[in-house]
């Protein structure tokens, strides 16, 4: 094990911790940079044994575009759900669907499940043990459930696959 991976087992997380610390304190004074750096080095050292190997983000620019796309979808989802909630209850047609997954590692599945929960009318409910299916609860089920499955697979899962290259 070389020196860098010994003292900085998670370089990205360390940087993130430092940035969040500085943002929380709202200053970039020397004192906070030193304190934040100490935390950013110590916390990953303590947490490193808990780490499960995960695929890396291979295409950061694609990831950035994905975040923007999801933000846009969140706004659309909010308006759709708000209209459904205020409108007549008989328009709500709930249902479950099982979405077959092509991803097989935990981090990409977590990202996909979170996205599914934040976006139009769907909440992820459960992942099967073999990580091949994601159960999703749909608020407003179209006649053909394949439509929902295709939307999740093409719009989100394909993008996540590209980002993590898996």
């Amino acid at each position, binding site marked *: 094990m070389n020196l860098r991976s010994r003292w900085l087992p998670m370089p990205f997380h360390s940087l993130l911790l430092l940035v*969040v610390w500085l*943002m*929380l304190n*709202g200053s970039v004074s020397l004192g906070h940079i030193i304190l934040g750096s100490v935390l950013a080095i110590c916390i990953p050292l303590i947490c490193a044994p808990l780490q499960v190997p995960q695929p890396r983000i291979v295409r950061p620019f694609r990831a950035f575009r994905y975040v923007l796309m999801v933000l846009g979808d*969140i*706004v659309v*989802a*909010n*308006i759709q*759900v*708000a209209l459904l*909630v*205020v409108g007549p*209850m008989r328009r*709500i*047609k*709930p*249902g*479950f*669907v*099982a979405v077959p997954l092509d991803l097989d590692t935990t981090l990409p599945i977590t990202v996909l*499940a*979170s*996205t*599914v*929960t*934040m976006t139009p*009318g769907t*909440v*992820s*409910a*459960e*992942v*099967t*043990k*073999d990580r*091949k*299916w994601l*159960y999703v*609860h749909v*608020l407003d*089920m179209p006649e053909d*459930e394949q439509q929902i499955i295709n939307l999740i697979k093409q719009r989100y899962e394909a993008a996540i696959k590209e980002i993590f290259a898996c």
Partner: protein
Amino acid sequence: MNFWVELLISSLLLLGGLFVLVGSIGLIRLKDLYVRLHAPTKATTLGLGGILVGSMVYMSHQYGHLTIHELLITLFLVITAPVTAHILAKVALHHEVTMMKRTRNQRHVTTARMQLPPEEQEKQ
């Protein structure tokens, strides 16, 4: 304070408040736990977003510098809200919470609870 800035802040706050209100109305009106989950996870995100952007505009106008606490709150919210919803749905599956009669594909609940793949669908 400039009239237009005030107008912008108030409309952002109103918009945010409206969406949070809709989220709460959803909690009362919707009929079962799974459907109810949709209201707080979605309507509230945009509601809080509106309030936080309003707060950012106010703070930066009042104190002349940009505060980023609001961005952090958004970040934490976006990370935690789906996880909470997922855990709640999971617990509901295990407790076999009653759901609206017209919920489709109720057969998935049995297999989902055991974390097993869905049974083969019969062709209709």
